[in-house]
């Protein structure tokens, strides 16, 4: 039995090592990469589903889809009194309201007295507040947490979603999106 002529080991001999290296890099990348746990709404660009929520506090009316078809862009803020970051965005919401932006709130799984206390402490930037005890509106617009803020144009179409509290550095973006929603 004659040995076949020894072939020169080509690049192929490095292939397993390269593959291993690639897998290793992938695993390390998966470990160190800051995980993105936010689920963005897939409902941007679509009209608000129809809903009608009863008022969450005494001095503000409830909220319905029709309220968003008045021709002017508005903010829809999904919040809750039990949500800690919601208090953080209060000054920003107040500033937006002061600039003439209408902000409508949806209080998620909240008791009336708790909403009232939350607004007494943090200020009330809302024109209307609907009470969403079963997260129905939240689910219907593809929101997965509190706080979230949606820009709704004058025809009631969802134009932009901001996940998490609105910080000072987000203000220009929100105003820009509101302006875009005017067209």
């Amino acid at each position, binding site marked *: 039995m004659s040995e076949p002529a020894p072939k020169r080991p080509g690049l192929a001999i490095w292939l397993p090592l390269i593959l291993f290296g690639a897998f290793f890099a992938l695993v390390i990348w998966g470990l160190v990469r800051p995980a993105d746990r936010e689920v963005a709404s*897939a409902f941007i660009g679509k009209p608000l589903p129809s809903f009608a929520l009863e008022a969450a506090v005494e001095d503000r009316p409830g909220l319905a889809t029709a309220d968003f078809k008045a021709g002017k862009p508005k903010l829809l803020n999904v919040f809750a009194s039990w949500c800690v970051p919601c208090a953080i965005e209060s000054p920003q919401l107040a500033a937006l309201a002061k600039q003439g932006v209408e902000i409508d709130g949806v209080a998620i799984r909240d008791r009336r007295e708790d909403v009232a206390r939350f607004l007494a402490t943090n200020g009330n930037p809302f024109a209307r507040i609907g009470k969403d005890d079963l*997260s129905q509106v939240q689910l219907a617009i593809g929101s997965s947490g509190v706080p979230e803020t949606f820009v709704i144009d004058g025809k009631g179409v969802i134009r932009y979603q901001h996940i998490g509290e609105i910080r000072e550095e987000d203000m220009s973006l929100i105003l820009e999106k509101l302006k875009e929603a005017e067209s």
Partner: protein
Amino acid sequence: MSLLIKRIALAVLVLFAAPLAAQDLLPPAPYAYKQLEDPAQEAKAQALMETLRCLKCQSQAISDSDAPMAGDMRHQVRTRIKAGEDPEAIRTWLIERYGDYVSYAPQNKPIMWPLFAAPLVILLLAGILLRGRFRKAAKSEKAE
């Protein structure tokens, strides 16, 4: 000594303190923990809930999660099933809002095709490689 007593008292008090959790105080939605009256409908709802992702606790299905939002999603699923809606229609409704990520059941979409094609491609490649090897072996045997 009184300091020690104070400390013990404090430790005991801490045991009974309510945790300051970011959780709402409302009772769970009616159908969050209650099964549907009709066992056939409940079975349908259960099968669907096991394949829907909880958005708050993303490695759990809504059927496994105690997050209030998962409870509200279960309520949503059960009431819709009760109203006679098709489970797949409910899944589609949720996917329209949250994307494919909300469903654990793979959707038949073009992006999945490479995944299904991969075993075939690998088998084919292996076949071609092996054929080459066998031919070589047969040739060298003949040569002897």
